[in-house]
């Protein structure tokens, strides 16, 4: 007889403890994991702002001025402030993952995690400085 893969009333079930929906709220490390995952929402919300900015740029100077005024909405500033903390959290956790994903060895010895993550931070600083320079340069 072919074993049935479907559940039946008499099918022995595995023992599994039920996990509460709020399992991630019980421990700081779990909560941190959840917050890190939630940073993606603010990544997406920034992209929406960027798309609106591109739309406004295509619409001409007046549309762009309106977009800049819209950014000053206090509610949006607060949301963007929270979003900034979240994307910062994303960046730091992402850069710190590099030594975990990639074990760099030098003369048979594993390089300390700090040294593997450090180039990420240096590059991050350089890219951020370049963007500020490009946007703030006069004339």
């Amino acid at each position, binding site marked *: 007889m072919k074993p049935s893969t479907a559940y039946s009333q008499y099918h022995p079930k595995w023992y599994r403890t039920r996990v509460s929906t709020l399992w991630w709220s019980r421990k700081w490390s779990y909560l941190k994991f959840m917050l890190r995952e939630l940073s993606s929402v603010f990544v997406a919300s920034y992209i929406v702002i960027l798309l609106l900015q591109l739309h406004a740029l295509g619409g001409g100077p007046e549309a762009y001025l309106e977009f800049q005024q819209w950014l000053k909405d206090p509610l949006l500033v607060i949301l963007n402030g929270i979003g900034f903390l979240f994307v910062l959290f994303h960046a730091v956790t992402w850069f710190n993952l590099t030594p975990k994903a990639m074990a760099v060895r030098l003369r048979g010895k594993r390089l300390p995690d700090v040294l593997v993550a450090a180039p990420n931070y240096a590059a991050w600083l350089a890219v951020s400085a370049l963007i500020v320079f490009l946007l*703030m340069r006069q004339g």
Partner: protein
Amino acid sequence: MANRSNEPLLWALFSGGGVAAAFLIPVLLFLYGLAFPLGWLQPPDYERTLGLVQHPLTRLVLFMLCFLSLFHWAHRFRFTLYDGLQIKHLNPVINLFCYGGAVTGTVAAAYLLWTLP
């Protein structure tokens, strides 16, 4: 629903988007979300911004940023709902919302960057 063979591609997009978002979004969000609206720094005007964005390299970077970051969001948010809320039975709807949203945003980014004056 995404079948098994799609997973490596989705994971690659997730991690590519993680890198792009980590490098570019903090500084951009700080400037456009806080520093410019609150008057800490003087934002570049329309002409200068348009000039910067019109450069082919900027267009390419912005397109990749939108494309990868949106798929990063889609993948991560899908599992946030899956793990955090345990709503497995809604998987088809969630996948449609996440990946459908990412595709829509990517197409919008391509269109907007392409049609920029």
